[in-house]
């Protein structure tokens, strides 16, 4: 119903730029905006650092014991901090009506969602992957395994951003949605946690960590193909 109205309105406008071009513009815009508000990028990283500090304090300062739990600690902290970062994905845009304009723009919303999620990953997932080795070192992880940690967090956080985008889009209109958002996204993120922690564990042991990494890649590909569609549908529902 709403779609038909939109498409007739579009016909009288000048031709739209291609979906890819629109997505590129969206990506550039989101990154530029985020770089102007650096707190948004830094806060989840600080949160990640603090959470990984809590574990040695809570368990034991012995590096040998920490090394055993390091994969779980790193991944639980990464999961929580990506959850925290979801706050910034749509909230501001929804608040000032920009998101509504995106929906009305006539552009494919799924492509725009893909671009937004990609920007979000570049701004939160990738820095997390860069940050993870530092946290790993503080947990007594051997230096040789750091490459594996970076790869697994980088790949895993793609899927986390995409799953999170669906959850964030669904809870757009919900006030104080933090707890609900975690209830929606965490169960869906369990496979990422399992494979990510496994890849990290294998990397720490010095074993080949390819297989779980490939599975993380598979999850990311599945997410890239399906999640933007679901997120677009969810944004439409939240704004209608």
């Amino acid at each position: 119903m709403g779609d038909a109205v939109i498409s007739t309105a579009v016909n009288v406008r000048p031709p739209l730029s291609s979906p890819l071009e629109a997505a590129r513009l969206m990506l550039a815009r989101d990154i530029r905006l985020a770089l102007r508000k650096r707190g948004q990028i830094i806060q989840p990283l600080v949160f990640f650092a603090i959470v990984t500090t809590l574990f040695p304090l809570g368990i034991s300062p012995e590096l040998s014991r920490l090394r055993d739990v390091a994969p779980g600690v790193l991944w639980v902290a990464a999961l929580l901090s990506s959850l925290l970062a979801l706050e910034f994905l749509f909230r501001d845009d929804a608040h000032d009506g920009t998101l509504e304009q995106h929906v009305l723009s006539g552009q494919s919303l799924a492509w725009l969602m893909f671009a937004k999620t990609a920007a979000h990953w570049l701004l939160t997932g990738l820095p997390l992957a860069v940050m993870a080795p530092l946290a790993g070192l503080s947990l007594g992880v051997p230096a040789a395994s750091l490459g594996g940690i970076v790869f697994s967090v980088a790949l895993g956080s793609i899927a986390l951003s995409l799953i999170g985008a669906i959850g964030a889009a669904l809870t757009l209109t919900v006030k104080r949605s933090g707890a609900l958002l975690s209830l929606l996204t965490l169960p869906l993120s369990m496979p990422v946690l399992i494979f990510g922690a496994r890849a990290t564990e294998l990397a720490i042991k010095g074993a080949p960590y390819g297989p779980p990494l490939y599975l993380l890649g598979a999850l990311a590909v599945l997410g890239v193909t399906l999640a933007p569609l679901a997120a677009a549908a969810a944004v439409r529902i939240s704004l209608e």
Partner: protein
Amino acid sequence: MTFKQWFHRLGSPPHVYAFAERLTPWFAWSAALLIAYGAFAGLVLAPPDYQQGEDYRIIYVHAPTAWMSLMVYSTMAVAAAIGLIWRMKIAHAAAASCAPIGASFTLVALVTGSLWGQRMWGTYWEWDPRLTSELILFFLYLGYMGLRSAMDDMQRADRASAVLAVVGIVNVPIIHYSVTWWNSLHQAPSVMQLARPTMPASMLVPLLIMLLGFTLLFAALLLVRLRAEILTRERSASWIREAVSP
């Protein structure tokens, strides 16, 4: 009446309300009879297991509820998808009615599984892949209900929760297999083998009867909840007064 007409009638709340009212006793009675006979056959007539003794009998509640927990989720997701695609209010109402039933079945499956685990493994909770994915499924149900209850606007709650249900059903197999894989790396295969091919007929038949009984029970509960859901949604409609007046 052609199929198309029949399908269109499914979109009409008064029609579905009356239809559900008529069907409920059939499902409820057949479920009651089957479950009563299945319980008797399973708890009394079936022989004790040579390894687990009498303890295995909890399977007659555990397995059907575990089966229903997944089946209700699939039903919910299919109803939600129908509601999303054809904008059918009744389908959304059906999906919404499924969730509490499914969550209850999942909870019963978890509790009975944990009690069984206490007897078999000596511990109430074991990170067995089946129990773990059942627990995650329980969280998925809670998320679905949480999202619904967080939204005041019924239509938005319907459509948003429908997207979540569809996303969830895509994830259920992935979660299940990743948990199985995760578990097989960390511990030896558990002693419990649910799908023993050598299960004698005297044990298997009551299980199948219970399975059918629980499926019909779900249908009966769904119809009752669906009627309640329709009453809530259509409370300002005029046909309601006729339908509920004695």
